C-alpha cells in the first residue's frame, strides 16, 4: 500500500470509484459508532451515580458527538448529503454502527423507570475507547489525507476518554464482591459483542487494499483485550465469534430502529429546517 499515492482532496477520492466506496464505508462505521454510543451516553444525563461523574461523562459524550459530526462532514464533502441529514434521516439498514454501540443502557428508558446498568456502561465505554484508539491510530496512516488529519486531532482528544474509563475499570474491579460480579457479567456481555467493533464489514478487503486503512484492527484489538482482562482480573476473551448481527453490514439488533425513530422525532417535523 505504500506504493499508492496519497489522496488529498474529496474530488480526487470521488474520481476513484473503489477508493471512494471503501472510504465512505469506513467513515459511516466510525461516525455511526460515535453517534449511536453518544446517544446512549446522552440518555444517562442526570442519572449518573455521582454528580461529578455526570458532568465528566457528559463531556465525553459531547466530544463523541463532535467527532461524529466531523466525520459526517467528511462524508458531506464526498457527496453523501448534508451532515445532519446523514445523522438523522437514513434507514436503519444504512447505519453501519457496531451492534455493541446500540445496545440499551439497561432496562427501561431514560424517560420512564430507567434501570440503567453502570457496570455495563463503564465496560462498554472502556472497550469502545480501547478500540477507537486503535482505529484512530490506523486512520492517522490512511491514504486519505483529510481523514488522517482529522484522526490526528481526534486521537489527541480521545486520550482523556480512554484514560477516564480506565480509571473506572480499575476502581470497580477488585473492590467488593458485588462490584466484581457486576463487572464480570458486563465484561462477558461486552466481549460477546466486541468482534463487531473490529469488523470492517463486507467491504473489509477493499478498505484495506485501497489503503483507506493501512491494517486490519482485529489482531491488535484482541491483544488489547487480553491485556485488559489480565490487568483488571477479568475472564480472558477466548472465543472470537462474530455476533449473529454485527451492524457493519446494515443488519442491526432490534434496539436500533426505535432508537433512530426517537432521535429523529423532532427532525422529522421540519427536515433540513433550522432548529
Amino acid at each position: 500500500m505504500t506504493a499508492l499515492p496519497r489522496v488529498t482532496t474529496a474530488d480526487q477520492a470521488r474520481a476513484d470509484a473503489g477508493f471512494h466506496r471503501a472510504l465512505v464505508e469506513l467513515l459511516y462505521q466510525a461516525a455511526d459508532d460515535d453517534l449511536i454510543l453518544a446517544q446512549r451516553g446522552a440518555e444517562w444525563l442526570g442519572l449518573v451515580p455521582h454528580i461529578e461523574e455526570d458532568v465528566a461523562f457528559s463531556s465525553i459524550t459531547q466530544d463523541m458527538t463532535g467527532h461524529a459530526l466531523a466525520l459526517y462532514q467528511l462524508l458531506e464533502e464526498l457527496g453523501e448529503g448534508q451532515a445532519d441529514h446523514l445523522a438523522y434521516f437514513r434507514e436503519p439498514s444504512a447505519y453501519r454502527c457496531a451492534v455493541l454501540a446500540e445496545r440499551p443502557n439497561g432496562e427501561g428508558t431514560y424517560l420512564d423507570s430507567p434501570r440503567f446498568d453502570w457496570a455495563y456502561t463503564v465496560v462498554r465505554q472502556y472497550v469502545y475507547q480501547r478500540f477507537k484508539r486503535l482505529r484512530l491510530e490506523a486512520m492517522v496512516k490512511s491514504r486519505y489525507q483529510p481523514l488522517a488529519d482529522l484522526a490526528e486531532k481526534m486521537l489527541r482528544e480521545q486520550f482523556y476518554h480512554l484514560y477516564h474509563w480506565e480509571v473506572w475499570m480499575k476502581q470497580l474491579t477488585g473492590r467488593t464482591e458485588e462490584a466484581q460480579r457486576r463487572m464480570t457479567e458486563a465484561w462477558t456481555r461486552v466481549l460477546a459483542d466486541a468482534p463487531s467493533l473490529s469488523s470492517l464489514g463486507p467491504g473489509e478487503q477493499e478498505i484495506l487494499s485501497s489503503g483507506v486503512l493501512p491494517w486490519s484492527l482485529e489482531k491488535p484489538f484482541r491483544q488489547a483485550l487480553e491485556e485488559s482482562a489480565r490487568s483488571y482480573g477479568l475472564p480472558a476473551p477466548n472465543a472470537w465469534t462474530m455476533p449473529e448481527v454485527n451492524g457493519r453490514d446494515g443488519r442491526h439488533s432490534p434496539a436500533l430502529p426505535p432508537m433512530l425513530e426517537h432521535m429523529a422525532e423532532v427532525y422529522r417535523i421540519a427536515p433540513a429546517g433550522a432548529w
Partner: protein
Amino acid sequence: MSEERAQTAATTASTPAGGAFEPYLVFKQMEHRGPMESEYTVLAPNAEMALAMAQENFMRRQEAPYNLMVVRERDIVRLPEELRQALVRTMPRDYRSVPAYAHVARRWQELKLATGDDAPAPRR
C-alpha cells in the same frame, strides 16, 4: 516544641527512617476573595507548626496577607506526566462559548426590540 527537640526531629527527617518532618506547601491569600497563591515550602513536623513558621519565612517584609494556608506536599496529587495529554483539547468547543452566538444580538436588533412598545428601554 523546644529547639532541642526540633533539632533532633530535623535530623531524623534527613534520614529515611525518621520521616517526622515533611515539606508543606504554603499558600497566601492577599485579600478576602483573592486567589490562593502558592508561595514556597517549609519543612515542618505538622500543619500547625508549618502555619506558625510560614508567615515569617516568606512574608517577613511589609505585605500582610489576608490568610495563609498550608498543605502537606505528599497530600497533593498531581497528574503524572504521562497522563497530562488528557488535558489536550483539539476539537472545537465553540458551541458552548458566548462569541459563537454573536448573531443572537444582531437578530434582536433586526427585530427592533423596543420600537412601538410601551415597555421601558430594553436592557441587555
